[in-house]
């Protein structure tokens, strides 16, 4: 046995490691990097009505985006919605994840299943269900009016609130599951040590639990923020035609206006803003707790 290689996977010169990495790498390269590169090239092209895309090397599409108040408003709305969703996912998700991680209940697996279950229902299906429930003649308004609680229907559908609630519902499982796995890795005795040294629960959480859960908080925030920035079905169905966000804007620019150069520019703005805000929030959270 002495001559059998015990090299860990990933060491240079290890053919097995290369073999393990290649398929995913090729997939990512062809499926992601190449289209993004092409998209970027398109975004520098010119759009001539009637001729569609014309080869060029211009930043006109980006200038158009950043000088038109309409597009700036769409971007600002998207960021606002994504930040709000991520914030509430974290605030609501952390206690839930904590209970899930610490419970001794024999129904723990059932609880985890209950968290995962919503993921079985696609975004579009769920949003459609909400349209039925929250429309002006929908279940909620009909019930409240029938009971005499309200006299005119509450405007729930086609508001920013509806979109925010919808995205929170979609993203919550990702946040909770990410946090739960990290909190489970924190020694329960460390929390008890803080208690016994005189820290009440909130102080313990701020000084011990959050800093130790930081990797999970970051991962959960990044994941839900990216998902919220790029949400499509929920804003379209719950926000309605006037509630434009970046995801649907990319689609309509490409598919309805056939303006590929501008669509490419919108895509790149979305990607870049997501990236910058993700990095910024990571740095911010790190500085706050580490």
């Amino acid at each position, binding site marked *: 046995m002495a001559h059998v290689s015990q090299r860990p996977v990933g060491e240079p010169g290890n053919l097995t490691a290369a073999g393990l990495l290649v398929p995913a790498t090729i997939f990512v390269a062809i499926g992601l990097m190449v289209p993004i590169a092409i998209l970027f090239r398109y975004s520098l092209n010119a759009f001539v009505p009637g001729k569609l895309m014309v080869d060029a090397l211009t930043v006109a599409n980006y200038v158009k985006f950043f000088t038109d108040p309409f597009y700036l408003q769409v971007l600002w709305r998207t960021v606002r919605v994504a930040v709000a969703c991520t914030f509430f996912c974290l605030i609501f998700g952390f206690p839930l994840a904590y209970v899930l991680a610490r419970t001794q209940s024999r129904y723990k697996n059932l609880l985890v299943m209950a968290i995962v279950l919503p993921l079985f229902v696609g975004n579009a299906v769920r949003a459609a269900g909400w349209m039925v429930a929250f429309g002006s003649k929908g279940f909620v308004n009909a019930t409240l009016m029938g009971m005499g609680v309200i006299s005119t229907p509450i405007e729930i559908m086609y508001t920013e609130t509806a979109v925010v609630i919808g995205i929170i519902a979609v993203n919550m499982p990702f946040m909770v599951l990410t946090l739960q796995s990290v909190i489970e890795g924190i*020694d329960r005795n460390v929390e*008890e*040590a803080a*208690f*016994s*040294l*005189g820290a009440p629960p909130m*102080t313990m959480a701020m000084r011990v639990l959050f800093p130790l859960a930081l990797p999970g908080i970051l991962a959960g925030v990044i994941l839900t923020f990216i998902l919220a920035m790029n949400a499509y079905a929920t804003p379209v169905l719950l926000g309605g035609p006037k509630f434009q966000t970046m995801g649907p804007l990319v689609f309509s620019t490409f598919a309805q206006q056939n303006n590929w150069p501008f669509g490419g520019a919108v895509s790149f703005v979305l990607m870049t803003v997501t990236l910058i805000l993700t990095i910024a929030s990571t740095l911010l959270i790190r500085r706050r707790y580490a």
Partner: protein
Amino acid sequence: MASLTLDGLTKSYGDVAVVKSVSLEVRDGEFLVLLGPSGCGKTTTLRMIAGFVPPSGGSIRIGDQDITRLPPWKRNAGLVFQSYALFPHMTVAQNVAFGLEMRKATRSEVGPRVAEALRLVRLDGYGERYPRQLSGGQQQRVALARALVIRPDVLLLDEPLSNLDAKLRLQVRLEIRALQQQTGLTTVMVTHDQEEALTMADRLVVMSDGAVRQVGTQSDLYERPADLFVADFVGRSTMIAGTVTDPGAFRSDGGLVLTCPAAAQLGPATLALRPERLTLGPAARGLDNHVPGTVSFVSYLGAMLDVHVRLNGTDHVVVQIPNKADGLAPAVGDTIEVGWPASACLVFPRETA
């Protein structure tokens, strides 16, 4: 600094009682050890004192103050965990300072007290390191410093040595004991290791099945065990099953008639013998009890030899003798005389199930 009193302390989960009406008095400055096999309720008792487990009944007092319903952060108890439970994201100094900050100590007060606590556990100069950069023994001492620096009313130690390797454990035992005496802290330690318990404690509490079996000093437990469980758990005993037929007369199931203390209760009983109180060879003949037997097994323990002697088809005893290396040690198959005085007999009525 204060005394600690447990009065009828009980914990049940549903129908299962894990701690059954435990009453104890830990005197000011005393080192009390809760000793028992795993699952005996000793850790639950300690966690009730710390405030992590709400008691189902009974009360806990520190000095005159009833702390039964106080949350852990309002009890002034210093706790050292088996896993040390240091804060991994804080330096050693920050770990030790944590409890002082919670007590709103001023900055000018924290620095010197942290330094003093680290000096006490011989870790001065380690303040800026992180726990992961320390050895197990050093982490253990940081945990101790962190618990001591808050000047707790009671110090609670939950199997503090079981994650250390054997050699270090012997050393840390003595260090903790010395520290405790130096600070005069009322201390409760939980352990399943009887040797650890015997070396460190002022008094010991033997627990099993959630109940206290005996409270006493080392020699109380060893010389005068309250029941068969204590005789078996503290130190070693070999057991001979039989019956006390007349005052001072014990008849084993194997047919031996032995002399035992006259006070032994009549009826079915178990006779427990400490291996080192038995004598082998011709010297056995002058003792109250002497029985011929056959050596069935000899185990070599270095300084000592354990000689297993079969007395008849049913009864056998273990005799511990010094390893004199004079070539006269008994060998398997030898016929040999075993003897012991009546005073070496610990007789317990057989528990009727």
